[in-house]
């Protein structure tokens, strides 16, 4: 019969599917001793670039951290210690002498010399190269000559006058002004050296980078690249045997490039991936059940704040800002909206930097609705409020929750106002248009209190969008940068932070948290200050 035959055809694919079910493999893993040749897979997104001075996002810097070794790294107390550098010294915080360790080589065999650092930094600081990390060099003398105010003109110089070679292993860095935290700055991605092979001609001025260098970067780090960067697919690295520093305890790493984090998480659950750096927000409610003790958290450097346009007469009184702050229940929002994936913030600097103190914001950040309402009315706060946020970052939920708290606790109207992108919000705030209160986020550039204060609140700060200006604050920062020791600097910065608690140009809301997970095949997984998996500590047991 015709019909029966057709039915049989239709049934065939079903039977095949069922047959496949039967031969699905059963994966089992035995946890044995550590394997020094094991290869760990780490999930990342497609990096934008793999050039140290042009890599500002975490996926690229994760790969570069494997390929390069920094001058300094950070210890448990988040203080810098020398890695590729033998010694970093200064007498006046203005001229720094950097002496390199002997015996270090690039993966192509070239010895690491002072020139490698000077060339890489000159390349990064030269404006026409349009490097993302260009601004990291702005403290070095001669930066202005490489970065003219009129962007269309050719810069007057192509090398930083502040960089001077002493001998093959030593060079000095002269800064524009004393900066006591310069050593911490050197731990960032932007300050890696580049081998001669990176440039078309090392004698040329300005330097020109080999076009295909970033497809297979040659570094001075614990791992060397295996093959090349497979775009949107992966990057493999293997142990560099001639590495002169502390060797890692794994044989290599496979950075798998994912198009989105949900797929990355699915692969981790299927044990196809060893480390995920950030559990997707949607999966946080179930992550404990999915991973058990393979789910971990650690403090991250991000800080979320609610900012005030202090130039706006409605918010010019500190009392008004304080009353609003006291009307916000930070714990409730962290627990209800963020499922505990972030932490309530009561300070202006992150716990990941040396000098952090808990609750520097004091009474102003403590939830106290009755006192808040009394003070708000006494100070004559505005009857209606709005909070501007960027619609593409998942901020609507907490902005609405905050508004609801303000409505209930202060008896005012409050609405969230979305802007398409964060950039649109910042453009409006910079132009002093009416944005009301607005959200701000900060990711640390270098682990120092200064980085949470200078750019954000000093009068000429690059990210001061609130029109905040306090000469005492500016002076304290200057004194901190000129301080003889790091401890003295921290004292000045802490005094500056105390001023913020009085003036409240912004309200600290939440600290970020790394929520990461790993497979059964690895142990000792940790995330460093820059949101990278620490490949020097991780162990392979699979």
């Amino acid at each position, binding site marked *: 019969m015709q*019909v029966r035959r057709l039915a049989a055809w*239709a049934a065939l694919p079903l039977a095949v599917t069922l047959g496949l079910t039967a031969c699905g493999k059963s994966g089992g893993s035995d946890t044995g001793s550590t394997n020094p040749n094991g290869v760990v897979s780490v999930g990342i997104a497609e990096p934008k670039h793999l050039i140290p001075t042009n890599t500002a996002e975490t996926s690229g810097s994760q790969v570069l951290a494997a390929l390069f070794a920094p001058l300094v790294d950070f210890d448990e107390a988040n203080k810098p210690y020398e890695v590729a550098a033998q010694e970093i010294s200064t007498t006046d915080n203005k001229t720094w002498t950097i002496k390199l360790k002997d015996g270090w080589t690039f993966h192509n065999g070239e010895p690491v010399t002072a020139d490698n650092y000077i060339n890489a930094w000159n390349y990064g600081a030269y404006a026409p190269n*349009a490097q*993302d990390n260009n601004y990291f060099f702005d403290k070095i003398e001669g930066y202005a000559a490489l970065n003219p105010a009129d962007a269309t003109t050719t810069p007057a110089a192509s090398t930083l006058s502040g960089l001077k070679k002493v001998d093959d292993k030593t060079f000095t860095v002269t800064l524009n002004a004393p900066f006591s935290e310069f050593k911490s700055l050197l731990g960032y991605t932007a300050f890696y050296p580049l081998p001669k092979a990176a440039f078309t001609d090392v004698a040329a001025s300005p330097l020109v980078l080999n076009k295909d260098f970033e497809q297979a970067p040659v570094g001075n780090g614990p791992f060397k690249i295996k093959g090349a960067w497979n775009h949107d*697919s992966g990057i493999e690295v293997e142990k560099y045997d001639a590495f002169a520093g502390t060797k890692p305890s794994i044989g290599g790493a496979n950075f798998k*490039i994912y198009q989105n984090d949900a797929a990355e998480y699915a692969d981790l659950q*299927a044990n196809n991936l060893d480390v995920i750096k950030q559990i997707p927000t949607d999966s946080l409610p179930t992550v404990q059940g999915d991973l058990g003790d393979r789910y971990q958290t650690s403090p991250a450097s991000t800080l979320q704040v609610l900012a005030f346009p202090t130039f706006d007469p409605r918010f010019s009184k500190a009392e008004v800002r304080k009353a609003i702050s006291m009307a916000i229940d930070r714990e409730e929002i962290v627990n209800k909206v963020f499922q505990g994936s972030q932490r309530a913030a009561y300070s202006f600097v992150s716990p990941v930097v040396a000098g952090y103190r808990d609750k520097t914001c004091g009474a102003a950040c403590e939830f106290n609705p009755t006192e808040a309402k009394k003070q708000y009315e006494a100070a004559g706060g505005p009857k209606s409020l709005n909070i501007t946020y960027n619609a593409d970052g998942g901020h609507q939920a907490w902005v609405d929750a905050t508004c609801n708290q303000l409505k209930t606790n202060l008896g005012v109207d409050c609405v969230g106002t979305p802007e398409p992108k964060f*950039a649109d919000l910042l453009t409006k705030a910079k132009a002093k248009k009416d944005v009301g209160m607005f959200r701000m986020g900060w990711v640390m550039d270098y682990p120092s209190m200064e980085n949470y204060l200078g750019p954000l609140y000093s009068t000429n700060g690059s990210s001061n969008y609130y029109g905040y200006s306090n000469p005492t604050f500016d002076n304290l920062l200057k004194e901190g940068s000129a301080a003889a020791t790091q401890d003295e600097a921290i004292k000045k910065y802490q005094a500056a932070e105390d001023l913020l608690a009085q003036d409240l140009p912004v309200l600290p809301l939440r600290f970020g948290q790394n929520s990461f997970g790993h497979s059964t095949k690895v142990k000792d997984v940790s995330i460093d200050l820059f949101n990278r998996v620490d490949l020097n500590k991780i162990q392979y047991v699979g």
Partner: protein
Amino acid sequence: MFRYIVRRLLQMILVFIGTTFIVFTLMFAGGEGDPIQNLAGERPVSAIQRAQLEQQFHFNDPFLTRYWHYLTDLLNLDLGTSLTGRPVWDLITERFPTTLMLASIAILVTIVFGITAGVIAGIRRGGIFDNITLVVTLIIIGIPTVVLAPIGQLLFGIKWPIFPATANNPATWYELLLPGIILGMLSVATAMRLTRASVSENLRADFVRTARSKGIPRRRVIGVHVLRNSLIPIVTFIGVELGSLMGGAIITERIFNITGIGNLLYKSLSLGDAPVVVGTVSVLVVVFLIANLIVDLLYAVLDPRIRYE
């Protein structure tokens, strides 16, 4: 026939210029905010860096000049470079085979299940099979991809790992099987309903009665006379479906981490990477137009009464 094809090709040029112009306008003439800031994320962009990038991507030229440059480059198959500095042409050609593989699995699933079930249901209209398939397909069509795909992944990729949970780049057929089946299921219902209606209508047509009365075996009546005449609406549907699948199944590709056109479009749109969006859409327009032309030509093969002038 030849004149028809030439006329269609000429029409395609007009459609192509029109669509690229609209997309180009939408992407570049504001609305997408500030592409340079988007690229930098939440960090400030220095004035110098901004000027360098603006120069590099000609953001300051008048709009029509830029569109003219774009069109002339396009004729040389130069789609420009993305904001991250990769040639757009490479980005597309790298991903196209994967999307093509995924689309063919999906279409195959649609054809095998949809047409088979449709024919059976059409012959036995109102029977048990007809009713059951109607309910089942309606349930599947009622579940959106955002639900169906993650459930499929969880069940068959993680709980019972029959299929890989995600795809690598380049993807293998095996990795694309599960997402392909899920994608195909969504159009099974439509294909089945179309076939069923068309078959049951043709069964009552004069030429079928004539064929039967001539004593032709039932198998041949259904297989040749009914099926062939019933395929026109399905071919139309599948042609359009194939065209849109080429555009990439954004949701499915994202869930299964498939490095295809859909993912490329999604990523570039969220980054505001206009050169990639415009380039990809231009290529997709051509693909879609060609797919439609082929469908139209297939009509004549299926039904000799159709003539092209």
